């Protein structure tokens, strides 16, 4: 099991409302799971808990047997959040090189990264991130999340803001990732935004998984 979230509950303050209420998710190699929920349903909180950025109030999350948030778990995770985590004043190349160093990827060259090629990012590699549109930033974020060849990809609203071609390219990359034994957990505000039949869709309402679509 690559991802195992058991009975995860979360609230941000001691007497605040529950953002997640007993969420359990399992993802095995080859799985593509889309968590679909409206704004405020807890999607981003769930992704951040799976990534180990936020601790759950109750429950636990294991990534390939390691506790979420541990260095071992982080090594096998790729994360794309809805807000870009790239440094706006650095170029795309500088951002990718930074993360290659942080993930211990030796001799990484963005110019020869096949994902850069597939997503058409070659021509913007030397542009500062602040000069890119939302869609291009999202593509660059995706390359950053894949450069260390993670087993698990966590994507918060990956299809939002992408044009048709972008969605097709992204889907091709995700399908290739799962064919190689990886797993994908993505979120989306609308089920209709999630392309194709590859994804298993789970509906999240008020912090509870209420069933599959």
């Amino acid at each position, binding site marked *: 099991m690559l991802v195992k979230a058991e009975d995860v509950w979360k609230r941000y303050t001691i007497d605040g409302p529950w953002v997640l209420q007993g969420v359990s998710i399992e993802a095995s190699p080859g799985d593509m799971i889309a968590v679909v929920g409206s704004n405020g349903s807890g999607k981003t909180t769930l992704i*951040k808990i799976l*990534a*180990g*950025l936020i601790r759950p109030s109750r429950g636990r999350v294991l990534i390939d047997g390691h506790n979420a*948030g541990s*260095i*071992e778990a*982080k*090594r096998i*995770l790729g*994360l794309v*959040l809805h*807000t*870009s*985590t*790239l*440094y*706006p*004043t*650095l170029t795309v190349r*500088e951002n990718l*090189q*930074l*993360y290659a*160093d*942080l*993930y*211990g990827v030796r001799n990484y060259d963005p110019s020869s990264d096949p994902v850069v090629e597939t997503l058409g990012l070659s021509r913007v590699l030397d542009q500062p991130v602040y000069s890119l549109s939302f869609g291009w930033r999202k593509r660059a974020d995706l390359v*950053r999340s894949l450069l260390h060849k993670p087993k698990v990809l966590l994507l918060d609203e990956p299809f939002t803001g992408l044009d048709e071609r972008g969605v097709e390219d992204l889907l091709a990359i995700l399908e290739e990732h799962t064919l190689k034994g990886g797993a994908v957990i993505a979120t989306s505000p609308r089920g209709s935004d999630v392309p194709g039949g590859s994804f298993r869709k789970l509906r999240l309402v008020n912090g509870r998984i209420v069933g599959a679509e």
Partner: protein
Amino acid sequence: MRELKALLRKDLTTELRDKGDLIVKLSFAVAAGVVASAAAAYAEEPAMAVAGALIIFTVMTGLFEAYSSFIREALTGTLDGLRAAPVEGWLLLASKALVSSLWVWLELIIFAATAAIFTLGLNPSWPPLLAWTVGEAVFMGGISSFVSASLSYGEARAGGVALLVLSLSIPFLRVSVDPLIVSLSGTYPSPGGLASMSIAALGFTAFTVVLGGLTLE
């Protein structure tokens, strides 16, 4: 250490490319130095007047650094990317602390050089004064990064930063006042005074780097 080098390169480059921030910091150092210098011209003991202004200025630089390190990264979303990477928290903090120390030191030197224009007897290149600025910069870099990391996601950061920076720096500033006054008067401070300041600076900074690193994990 590959990670630390990458983080240092990133922290330095992003700071240098943020021209607005750079200009504000350096202009503030010049303006504060001129004001201190003008005040010192009317003081009976110019060294004492400059010492007071230098201590206040040091705290202000620490506050600026606290607001512009992890807190800014949390607001722009880049901190999530760093925290998701397999890097120990203390390395993230050490990088910020080193770069913040460099900035604080640069600002202290500019302040002292500007203050020296109108203050007779003040020599910014006087070795004991230079040593004092290094110790002060190391300390403020560590404290400001620690405070920034601790409050990066907190609702209390608006008032909490000032309160924490002030309350954590006062004990150290008290230790560092005597060597500063002696240095500004053009003599060498006692080895004991400088030693206790250096030990306090390194001890406080190491403690905050380890503790602040835990808050980022």
